[in-house]
């Protein structure tokens, strides 16, 4: 299809020397991407830091420096303390549930069986489909009156209609719901990660262990799991970062309620910074994500590097 390039007959242009210098051309070619990222990620990031130490609102866009007082006010606010606790519960609850489900899913998909391709395609769905659309489907399934879950429980005789739970109206159940929906969204990703890791292990390692008398559990937890740890760590970085900072599930499913029971950092930053227009406090709330993200990423990267050596 592709033929070897024909010799070029025309005389070399004036700029030809630029295009022949590997280092110069390399810098020119990488420049647009770096510029885009610097201007629309780096610059806004610095702005966010500055907003958080100023008195900036959309009604009074002043750049007055106020030091750390925004942070002081936030930390002393019990609503924010609850939000911070919610964020950790939400993140680690859904990651744990997602990992367990992902491991089981990968275990099932490892074995060849008729229709595996279709099953795999169906299991990928929650990760593939836009989360906002999947979340509204869940919202309808959790509906206070027409919930299909309640209908099923009632017809199975497990509960009566009068004691049917109001999933999104009860603070504890609402938290459970956002965790479940988020775990549901991420576990297919964990399945793919586990599968990619497991298929990268040479079969003779597993065979050797089997010959040496390692049973199913021993093989799984003492040989396979340690060997796929680096790739699982990468998956966890993504899972934690995207869950810790997300607001779409909470925004659509519970809108932070009931009475703040499911409010998370991203959602609170949106409410304060965009809805109320208090940009400085919103930015300060958002910046609370930063140390956690930083430690997660650094820790995981170090862990991976150590495993590779």
């Amino acid at each position: 299809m592709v033929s070897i390039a024909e010799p070029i007959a025309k005389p070399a242009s004036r700029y030809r020397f630029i295009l022949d210098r590997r280092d110069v051309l390399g810098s020119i070619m990488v420049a647009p991407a770096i510029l885009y990222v610097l201007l629309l990620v780096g610059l806004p990031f610095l702005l966010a830091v500055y907003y958080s130490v100023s008195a900036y609102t959309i009604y009074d866009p002043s750049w007055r420096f106020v030091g750390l007082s925004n942070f002081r006010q936030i930390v002393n606010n019990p609503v924010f303390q609850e939000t911070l606790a919610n964020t950790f519960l939400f993140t680690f609850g859904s990651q744990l549930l997602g990992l367990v489900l992902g491991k089981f899913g990968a275990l099932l998909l490892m074995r060849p069986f008729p229709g595996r391709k279709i099953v795999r395609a169906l299991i990928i769905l929650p990760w593939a489909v836009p989360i906002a659309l999947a979340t509204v489907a869940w919202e309808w399934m959790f509906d206070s009156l027409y919930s299909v879950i309640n209908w099923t429980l009632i017809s199975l005789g497990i509960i009566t209609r009068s004691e049917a739970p109001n999933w999104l109206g009860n603070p504890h159940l609402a938290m459970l719901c956002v965790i479940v929906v988020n775990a549901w969204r991420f576990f297919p990703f964990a399945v793919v990660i586990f599968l990619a890791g497991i298929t990268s292990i040479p079969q003779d390692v597993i065979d050797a262990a089997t010959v040496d008398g390692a049973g199913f559990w021993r093989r799984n937890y003492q040989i396979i799991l340690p060997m796929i740890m680096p790739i699982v760590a990468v998956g966890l970085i993504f899972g934690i970062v995207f869950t810790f900072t997300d607001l779409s599930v909470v925004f659509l499913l519970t809108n932070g309620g009931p009475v703040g029971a499911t409010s998370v950092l991203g959602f609170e930053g949106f409410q304060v910074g965009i809805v109320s227009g208090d940009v400085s406090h919103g930015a300060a709330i958002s910046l609370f994500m930063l140390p956690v993200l930083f430690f997660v990423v650094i820790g995981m990267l170090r862990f991976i590097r150590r495993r590779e050596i």
Partner: protein
Amino acid sequence: MRRTFLNIAGGGAFYSAVAAFVVLTAFPFYWMLITSLKSNPDLYNITNIPFWFNEAPTFEHFQYLFQQTQFARWLLNSLIIGLCVVAITLVCALPAGYSLARMAGRSGEALGIGIFLTYLVPPTLLFLPLSRIVASLGLQNSMWSLVLVYPTFTIPFCTWLLMGFFKAMPVEIEEAAIVDGCSLFGAFVRMVLPLSLPAILTAVIFTFTLTLQEFVYALTFISASAQKPVTLGVATDLVRGDIFFWGEIMAGALIASIPVAIAYNLFLDRFISGITGGAVK
């Protein structure tokens, strides 16, 4: 005898587990489908069996969606946004990925990891300053703000993806072209790019699905109905006060989900072949 019984029992347990997983992942989508085809009296009767039609299925929700709401407009917006972001991403990520793959030593590697890490900077950290930037550019309430902002996460990801692909490509291809009289850049355009079509296709599909899945920036920047992308429109615009138009919401969610689901499943295999399948072995 005992052995075959155990085998059958084991097989049964295995398939039950598979079935349970499929129900868990796919039920919400079945629920979209069945809700979108049910008539309202059927939908809002708590004594009806919810899993199947108690009255004749109807297309009235789909009709309403296309005739009485801006759904078609939202689909078009998403398409325009996606295409523009794909163009910007390719223009930036293709040369960047190539440059980083061929850059000698640690600087190329460090720069590559640096670009990739920006993919992990979350929208919820940046939406406040970006919303001010978008406003000062006069793009608030316009879908062009999304065209401007979405490349911030598609460029890092595609650069990383393409970098891996270019690294797997043998340098001899360019060297042969240079011997034949191409400039270095000419070798990239005439030899490397045509051989990279599978990787470019992967990047295009990935970029497009990422723009369709994004929600936070769209929610922050856009409140005018006519400018919304499809995910935001379906999730926020089909609610009037306290009344949810469930049939329409589910119909809209279903229509917007199907192409992404298909593209993603195609992309999974493409993704693997894009990374492992070099042009010349």
